[in-house]
């Protein structure tokens, strides 16, 4: 398992970035694709916004943008129909693959 996956398992989404270029590296890599120096890690704020959403059976899912423009697909937990631009809080886990889920704030 990679550091990123290991941390997801602990419930932490680590953002990979390059100190030298001040760039976010997503998906995470050990080496920056611009300057080829080693990258660093910082914890996500776990806050994001809904870019688009749909629903499968009774579960909403969508494209969410979190810190530094990182976008992921995940489940959206909401008791009402989500809205574009709505603020969400992310929780993560890892079980053979990443799992991102988003709770609509002030739900």
């Amino acid at each position, binding site marked *: 398992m990679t550091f*990123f996956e290991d941390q997801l398992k602990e419930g932490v989404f680590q953002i990979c970035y390059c100190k030298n270029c001040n760039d976010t590296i997503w998906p*995470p890599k050990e080496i920056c694709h611009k300057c080829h120096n080693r990258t660093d890690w910082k914890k996500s704020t776990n806050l994001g916004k809904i870019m688009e959403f*749909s*629903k*499968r059976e009774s579960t909403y899912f969508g494209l969410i943008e979190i810190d530094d423009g990182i976008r*992921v697909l995940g489940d959206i937990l909401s008791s009402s129909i989500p809205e574009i631009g709505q603020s969400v809080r992310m929780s993560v886990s890892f079980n053979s693959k990443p799992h991102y889920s988003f709770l609509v704030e002030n739900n």
Partner: protein
Amino acid sequence: MNKVAIVGTGQTKFSKDERDVEKLLFESASNCIQSVNNYDSNDIDGVLVSTNNNSKYLGAILSETLGIRPKISHSIEHLCSSGTNAIISAYAYISSGLSDMVLVSGVESATNPGQVLEWDRSRGNLEHPIYWGSMLTKSHKRKFQTTEEELAIVSAKNHKHAMDNPFAYSNEPRTISEVMNSKQITDDLRILDCSRSCSGSSSILLASEEKAKIFSDQPIEITGIGQKTTSASFTKNILGEIESTRIAADLAYKMAKIEAKQIDVAEVHDAFSVCELMAISELGLTSNEKSGEFVRDLFNTENRMINPRGGLIGAGHPLGATGISQTIEITNQLQGKSDKRQISNAKIGLIHNMSAAGTSSSIMVLKN
């Protein structure tokens, strides 16, 4: 650079049955070889196989089963656009003079590993294509007021075209209302909006201009090629756009010295209904806002200009074979050999093949 032409084609029927890839490859390649004049196995100096299958050394295996000892032989994988990538590689070998005649064979079994891109961690556990298909569809509806009916017309049209394609996986007619009432996979995708993975194989023979006339009475020249890969992760796409298609189309038109309006017939990559609407817009055939109306008009007037063989939705999607089957359709159209599917007086045709939610596109322009 040598000019390159298509001189032979062969296919197998696409089906839901799980079939052996080596046998499928041999079947389509054998049909292809039988379609050319003056065949001599010594003339083929390149054998390329496009597939997502994990079987090894398929280029050499196919060569041996056909009694060919080529100079160049290998496999090519690029998810759903493996087929056109293999043809374009063959083009490069011939145009550079490294090869004179290349057999390109694509194949897939119904259950294949090319449907999910595990590397893309940004998809989380929602790795199946239905999730990005839903995002693209919802976004198109939101941005361009595309209706459920307009999306259903894409599928109804392509199923109708596929009825006249003997190699298609589906020969069943589907009305607009059948599509609209088909099983909801998500709130934004119905089962009949989705292309289905299946087994099948298709093969094509390319030759230098000098050799082409020996093997075909009607060689079809590849006059334009454009390719672009913008990323591998779906989540780096700009919703509502297929940037890779727009860039690749521009390159292909420049190389072929044509404009979009000159295209008589096109095979476009309708992985989901919305992809056809997005593709025809990015190719410059219409605008996103008018794409639904454009397809409705084709359907109402029985104009088969877009996806005459039934597209991926009607014909099925054996990933490694798809781009080659698309190219065979346009070749046959330009040769006037498409029977009931024939577009009258087709002179210029286009193939649009893409991978992984449109993160990569390959486009070819053919002329008769």
